[in-house]
């Protein structure tokens, strides 16, 4: 179920963070999004929180949850699958 969401999550990351010159295929599904991976930071995290709510109706209530959710594309997709309305 959540695997079907992976391409959509990748596209959401590209769109909401305005990552230029990158296609969804270039984002590794299991790579860390923060730090060494895509190099995202807390400003990006809030942008992703808003995008997830807008695109999937899923709320990330706090940073502690966000740390787990934004660990990778796969964890984001799993969280959306579990929590979408």
């Amino acid at each position, binding site marked *: 179920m959540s695997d079907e969401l992976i391409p959509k999550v990748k596209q959401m990351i590209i769109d*909401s*963070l*305005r990552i230029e010159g990158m296609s969804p295929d270039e984002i590794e599904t299991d790579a860390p999004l923060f730090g060494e991976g895509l190099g995202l*930071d*807390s*400003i*990006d*995290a*809030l*942008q992703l*929180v*808003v995008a997830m709510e807008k695109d999937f109706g899923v709320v*990330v209530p*706090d*940073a502690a949850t*966000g740390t787990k959710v934004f660990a990778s594309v796969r964890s984001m997709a799993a969280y959306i699958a579990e929590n979408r309305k």
Partner: protein
Amino acid sequence: MICFMFPGQPLTHDASLPADADFMEIAALAKDRTGLDLASFTWSSGAHTEQVRLQVYGVAMSLHRLRLLLAEGIRPAVVAEHSMGIYPALVACGSVGEGDALEMAFRAGECMERRFRGREYALGCVIGLTEQPLAAISATNGVYPANVNTSRHFLLAGPRAGIEAACGEAAAAGAFSASVFPCDAPLHTPLMAEIGPDLEAIFSDYGYREPCIPLMEHIGQTTLSAARIPAFLVEELCRPVYWERTYRALRTLGATTFREVGVAAALTKFNRWIDSET
């Protein structure tokens, strides 16, 4: 219309420095005018805090990036600055030279380090809350909004105990993130007025040419004239940075392309957020 945006002091130092001739020249200038060896990140004489090092480093990296953009033939029609980004922004406008910009950043940083020594201050980065509840939390804890970057991104400054308490309350009130960072001085707050005369003395030591490119300041979103620059350099350290207002004013002015001239991409990310709400 291209806008060059100069960010404030970076929070961290990246040990992998550029190795091109332009950076070597800027590093030599930094060592000569401030005593900081950027390669080893140590002082050739004396000892100063990590914050002073980061201030000089930030200016050096902005100056290097500016050189590269100009070498590519990219020229700004307007220049904007955030906090200590004012020093390299003055270079971009032709108002001061690179050496003076590095030295001013160093002297202002050294002054803050020396005059506030023995007192504990901190910055609090709060993401996710809106301005009103955060203003109330700040007032309760005796700290101040220092940066109003977007509708949901703020930097607080003040005594460390107050910042820690404010960040705790902000997290409890639903902030997505609330982090405490060290600093030498209560930057961008009224508490800085205590060293206002010292800062005035520093900035009066330099000559300022009329900006050849409009330079929009972050307090009232006006363009600076040479005559206003020394007073602004003091004032900007005593008052908050209003980035969202500045970005919107730049847009209204006609800026369409924004190039961040410095370390990382914080201003670009603030702009992205502001655009998403427009």
